[in-house]
């Protein structure tokens, strides 16, 4: 019960510090107060800390963020180049890409990462966790996206417990 509350309060206090931009004692106290107040109003639910797998999860989060940043830069440049070519060779289409994640959070994060990836945009998600993705180059994405999705899902299963392949939804 206390774990999610502390997590949310810490995140909110950090956000307050980032937005105000000074680390004097009075401001830190105000940040902690605001964080606790808003976290109390939000009443977050979820799992506790799980200290044992914390380092591994943090490393996985770092790798995941690097992967997303790389995709953001790559997709910006890729789409820009595609627009600037005189007659873009578009082979668009909607592909079904299985997310491989059982939990809803895992599916949502997969859809987010897949939409960031170059030339792909998730249009719909069905109840089996299949992501229907609109691709600018359907033939290339067929191979590329599936492979990346497998790697992403391995990372996600380390960040969120019980989300990988074969795990049961709680």
């Amino acid at each position, binding site marked *: 019960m206390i774990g999610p509350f502390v997590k949310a309060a810490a995140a909110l206090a950090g956000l307050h*510090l980032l937005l105000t931009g000074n680390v004097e004692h009075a401001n830190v106290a105000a940040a902690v107060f605001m964080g606790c107040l808003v976290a109390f109003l939000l009443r977050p639910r979820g799992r506790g800390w799980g200290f044992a797998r914390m380092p591994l999860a943090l490393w996985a989060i770092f790798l995941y963020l690097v992967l997303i940043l790389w995709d953001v830069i790559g997709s910006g440049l890729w*789409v*820009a180049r595609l627009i600037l070519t005189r007659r*873009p060779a578009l082979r668009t*289409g909607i592909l079904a890409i299985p997310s491989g994640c059982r939990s809803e959070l895992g599916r949502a994060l997969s859809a987010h990462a897949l*939409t960031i990836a170059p030339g792909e*945009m*998730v249009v719909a*998600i069905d109840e089996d966790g299949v992501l229907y993705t609109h691709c600018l180059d359907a033939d290339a994405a067929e191979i590329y996206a599936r492979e990346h999705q497998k790697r992403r899902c391995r990372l996600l299963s380390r960040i969120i417990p019980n989300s990988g392949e074969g795990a049961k939804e709680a």
Partner: protein
Amino acid sequence: MKEELVAALGILLVVVGTSFSVISVVGYLRLPDVYTRLHATGKVSVFGIVLFLIAAVAIGAVDAGRAVVLGLFLVLAGPVLSHSIGSAAYRIGIPMRGAVRDDLAARGSTGREETTAGEQAEER
């Protein structure tokens, strides 16, 4: 000397960011249908703003914390916006021009997804 260097970096970032904004609008005007245009507006324009933010931090107009908050928010919100607009377009049946394949149409209507989501909500 240092000020000159920062100004040169700022010029570079502002020019590249502006060109990304122009590219996103050109893509929006040129590409054939709604779904392909979403790729242009959702990704390229965010890229431009992030470059401006880096320039603003480099010349010291804003402190880094707020710029990081805005940049992270844009990167998180961009895909959500693209997805919501794209899914609305598919629901009301806007066609794709020159599509090679459509797995979603082959599977069936999107109406089924809605009913099952409603049933799941009732079960809880």
